């Protein structure tokens, strides 16, 4: 150290730095680059994750300090009829929404891919809704679903001589009505991804199939769909997660009775929101988020497993 200290030029630490090997220097640079991100991920992602698990075992309500109550929140939740209603709703969004949106998206992408005339314009029409604000569009759809003389859809039904429908006011129709809004909002993204997947299939496969005399239907079944599988798997998992976490549309389309009528549209995320930020029952809400986490994990893993094994 003395030799470094007596040198007139560089500061002592610079001298130390200069003596390090190039390899060590690069490792130090790497950890320097990662310092802030590590603090971020530890403090804003990992710690809160563990905290959510911990809070789910407490009766914390913002006022009194949290005390450990074991699995009581889960027991309460699983014996709450509202939870099972919400559970059913959440899966209804998933089970109808995902297949319906993927089939529509695939059919549109499949035909749009072959269209040359005004291709960009038509593609833009389908893609545009994806870029809108879900909260704003929910209000537009809410207006569409109003009874006559306000609602556009009932106005149309009346013009063509069909009976008016209650839509958001009906226990049976409200959930499908909201689901249509969610499918509409996500369709453009799925179409673009399907089209990217279709483009990635080498044309030589199609040419070979045509020379072999395969018809359009056979080509679709034997070549297009199998080769499109990675895209399909991605979209199934991605859109399932979206439907299981649906919130913006439901919240904005049912503000007078959130999740109504009679909880018939309430998804799990809305239940979490109300438990946490209307009732301030934080421990109970944390238990619900753990259930949501488990559902998302199980559904994604099951889908990946089923779709991977079916080749």
């Amino acid at each position, binding site marked *: 150290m003395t030799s470094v200290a007596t040198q007139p030029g560089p500061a002592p630490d610079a001298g130390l730095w200069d003596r390090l090997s190039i390899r060590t220097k*690069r490792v130090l640079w790497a950890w320097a680059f990662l310092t802030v991100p590590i603090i971020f991920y530890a403090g804003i992602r990992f710690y809160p994750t563990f905290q959510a698990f911990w809070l789910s075992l407490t009766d914390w309500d913002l006022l009194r300090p949290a005390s450990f109550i074991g699995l009581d929140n889960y027991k309460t939740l699983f014996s709450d009829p509202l939870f099972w209603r919400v559970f059913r709703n959440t899966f209804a969004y998933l089970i109808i929404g995902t297949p319906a949106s993927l089939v529509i998206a695939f059919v549109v992408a499949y035909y749009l891919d072959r269209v040359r005339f005004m291709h960009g314009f038509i593609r833009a029409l389908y893609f545009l809704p994806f870029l809108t604000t879900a909260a704003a569009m929910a209000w537009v759809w809410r207006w569409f679903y109003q009874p006559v003389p306000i609602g556009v859809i009932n106005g149309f039904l009346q013009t063509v001589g069909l009976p008016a429908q209650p839509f958001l006011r009906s226990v049976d129709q409200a959930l499908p009505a909201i689901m249509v809004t969610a499918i509409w909002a996500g369709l453009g993204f799925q179409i673009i991804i399907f089209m990217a997947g279709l483009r990635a299939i080498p044309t030589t496969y199609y040419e070979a199939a045509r020379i072999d005399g395969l018809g359009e239907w056979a080509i679709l079944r034997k070549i297009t769909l199998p080769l499109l599988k990675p895209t399909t798997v991605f979209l199934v998992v991605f859109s399932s997660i979206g439907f299981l976490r649906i919130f913006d549309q439901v919240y904005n389309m049912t503000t007078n009775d959130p999740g109504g009528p009679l909880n018939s549209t309430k998804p799990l995320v809305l239940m979490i929101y109300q438990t946490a930020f209307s009732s301030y029952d*934080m421990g109970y809400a944390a238990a619900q988020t753990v259930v949501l986490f488990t559902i998302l994990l199980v559904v994604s893993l099951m889908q990946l497993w089923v779709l991977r094994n079916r080749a």
Partner: protein
Amino acid sequence: MSTMAVPTTELAANRRDIRPGRIITWTLLLIGGVLMVTPLLYMFSTSLKSAGQVYDLRLIPAQPTLDNYIEVLSDGRFLRWFVNSTLVAAAVTLSNVFFDSLVGYTLAKFKFRGRYFIFLAILSTLMIPTEMLVIPWYLMSSQLGWLDTYWGIMFPGMMTAFGTFLMKQFFETVPDDFLEAARVDGLNEFTIWWKIAMPMVTPAISALAIFTFLGNWTAFFWPLIVTTSRELYTLPVGLSSFAVEQSIQWEMIMTGAALATIPTLIVFLVLQRYIVRGVMLAGLKG
């Protein structure tokens, strides 16, 4: 259509057969596309109608008027919410472009013990839904005084695992030779990343920037939780509270919805090519 010679007459015949079918397909696709934008068209149409004309469901307003816009914009609320959304989205986007790239680059181009662990740890956060973190974030924000502040809205999104993963994929395609040459020239590692590596992945950066911006600009769930005063609402949260207030004045609600939609439509029209390419990039890599 191309003038490429078709090898067999069979194929040529086949192609001619499809023609009428193609016109029908094209027409159906166009009708479907128009249906997709119908909610937007009706939203704009109604925003241009006076209260008395709302029940007239024709798409073209009989007497279009900008009065609704003047009334909605007059008290400055929407402008404030627009500024809030834009500020928050811009700051989060800058942070993501900087940190996601830096981390992606470090994980792609540096060899050190623990690299794989860090990568897996960051990737594993993709499994955690935001909804599970909002309660701890809310607790943290209330303890640190972040509730109802810009920082409170922004902090959860300052870095994302998805962005990091995307950037890492792209930095892996950058040849080491370029970086090595810069090292020989005596540039430090930060400068090499910022000046040499970053310009080589601009398509990925623009995709990341566009998505982060749009995602945060339209975000609803967390801003709804963390903001309580009107002045700090983002546009989606503000619009929602505005619509509840208006109750059945649909022409006003549609005007508000239009104001929340116009900026994203402008962004789309200007950046359409990048956005579509970005979705494809993100979808294929992700």
